[in-house]
């Protein structure tokens, strides 16, 4: 983890002379920022009450990207909700697929084969890497540092190329299936992936050299957007923000799913809970994600070819050869396609650690082939309201890095 620079001695600003104070008439000013503002990557509106340059109060207005995700899910099959999850957090679509599918699998009681678990972990970590690169790169851009943004986005391109090789799409992956994944690794993937990891490591080194110790960057991040450990818990904040405040909560360690209990990785934890700590936590998490990807590649090569989908007939289509030659399998295929799988009645909640924090899905089934209720617990939506507390009394300019490192993603926040 990169080292924090020592704090310079902070001198209190000298009080203003009475003469300057006496006749000065000031009044608070209301400023609309957004919903489409070049310095915020996300459609969100801030209604800011300003006293000079200081923020007196702040109203955060979300919902500009509301597309009725939950309503749409209630009108299709359980499978048809998976592409919608891609469009929640579009920076890390595979993680959103994974959260939904694991909740449905919990209801169905399906255990995917081992190779599938490793593939999901690999895809998920590539996704997380892309998400953190977007967050850190875009934050630099919005603080007027163009060069590190380009390094970050170049590295993200590489992760997207890998995701394209994995599932055929760069952004909206639609990779995870109930009981499996879309398909196994393409030939030559491990070699290409190792090559890409080396390139990403080099880019992250450049990124680190350019910006981590940069005086302007550090000054704008350090001591801004501070939130305490207790406040994080009260506001149910999770992910890098909570870890930057000194709580080592990561569901990959606390409630290991997939194969995270067999992997060797560390959870970086901050001290102060300011934007600089959040930046450092994210940068270190990217290194840890690369480590996990490498371990997944080794394990997948060791496992050798094998099934990547469950054989459970409730969710899998029968083999094509049988569909073409046998009546029963033909009927099964027809029913699977037209009706979709029936999920036993009940309710389940499953949470995974997404790039922004706890991404949970609460699914309710009434026993039919259509979800009765799909609730996404969106970390972006829940991490955003404490921003008001973080920024009260701060300077207007502090809003930009604070918002960047909260990493609100419109698709996930507004659903």
């Amino acid at each position: 983890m990169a080292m924090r620079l020592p704090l310079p001695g902070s001198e209190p600003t000298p009080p203003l002379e009475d003469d300057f104070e006496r006749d000065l008439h000031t009044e608070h000013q209301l400023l609309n920022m957004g919903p489409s503002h070049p310095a915020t990557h996300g459609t969100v509106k801030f209604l800011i009450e300003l006293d000079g340059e200081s923020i007196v109060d702040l109203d955060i207005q979300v919902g500009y990207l509301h597309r009725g995700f939950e309503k749409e899910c209630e009108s299709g099959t359980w499978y048809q909700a998976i592409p919608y999850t891609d469009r929640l957090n579009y920076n890390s679509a595979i993680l959103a697929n994974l959260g939904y599918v694991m909740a449905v699998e919990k209801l169905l009681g399906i255990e995917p084969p081992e190779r599938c678990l490793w593939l999901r972990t690999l895809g998920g970590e590539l996704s997380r890497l892309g998400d953190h690169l977007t967050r850190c790169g875009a934050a630099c851009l919005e603080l007027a540092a163009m060069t590190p943004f380009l390094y970050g986005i170049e590295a993200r391109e590489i992760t997207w190329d890998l995701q394209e090789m994995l599932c055929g799409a760069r952004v909206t992956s639609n990779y995870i299936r109930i009981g499996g994944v879309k398909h196994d690794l393409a030939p030559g993937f491990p070699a290409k992936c190792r090559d890409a990891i080396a390139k990403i490591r080099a880019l992250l080194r450049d990124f680190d050299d350019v910006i981590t110790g940069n005086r302007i960057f550090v000054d704008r991040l350090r001591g801004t957007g501070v939130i305490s450990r207790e406040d994080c818990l009260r506001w149910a904040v999770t992910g890098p923000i909570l870890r930057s405040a000194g709580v080592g909560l990561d569901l990959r360690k606390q409630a290991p799913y997939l194969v995270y209990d067999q992997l060797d990785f560390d959870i970086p934890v901050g001290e102060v809970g300011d934007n600089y700590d959040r930046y450092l936590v994210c940068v270190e998490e990217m290194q840890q994600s690369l480590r996990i990807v490498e371990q997944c590649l080794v394990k997948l090569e060791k496992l050798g070819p094998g099934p990547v989908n469950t054989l459970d007939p409730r969710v899998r289509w029968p083999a094509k050869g049988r569909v073409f030659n046998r009546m029963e399998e033909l009927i099964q295929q027809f029913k699977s396609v037209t009706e979709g799988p029936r999920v036993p009645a009940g309710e389940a909640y499953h949470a995974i650690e997404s790039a922004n924090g706890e991404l949970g899905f609460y699914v309710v089934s009434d026993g039919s082939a259509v979800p009765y209720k799909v609730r996404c617990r969106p970390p972006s939506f829940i991490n955003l309201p404490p921003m008001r507390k973080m920024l009260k009394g701060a300077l207007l300019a502090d809003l930009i890095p604070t918002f960047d490192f909260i990493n609100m993603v419109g698709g996930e926040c507004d659903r």
Partner: protein
Amino acid sequence: MEHFDSPALRCLLERFPNAVQATHAAFGDATAQVERGSLLEIMRCLRDEPGLDFEMLSDVTAVDWLGQQPRFELVYHLYSVKQNHRVRIKSRVPEHEPEIASLVPLWPSADWMEREVWDLYGIRFSGHPDLRRILLYEEFEGHPLRKDYPKEKRQPLVGPRN
């Protein structure tokens, strides 16, 4: 009623034997259905009781069981970082009086999530400091996640506001 070895359910069954209506632990998720009048009291107990320590109100949502009485079901997910355990609390509210106590006095995270439930389901939270729509706009008619709200329903056009 059984506590399924969950410390939270055990505590609730001891302290509030009359308010807990049902419990289950399907798929490992400890769940209690409670009477809506006691919600605030029960939640305070879950938050403050040593050994339970639910510091986090992780999620608030609702389910519309159209045709059943009472119609709406509030679903709360609680998480304790200290103890690393979870519990789900559910409470039903009737259609003619869709109202329940707000949890904002206990956890500020309830603020936006309750606003969302009000917005999409039309369930009011008494004691909420600022209960207004959050994902939709003020002029929106109806509450779209109710099962009797048709997906294709059109909304009146709203002109620009200043």
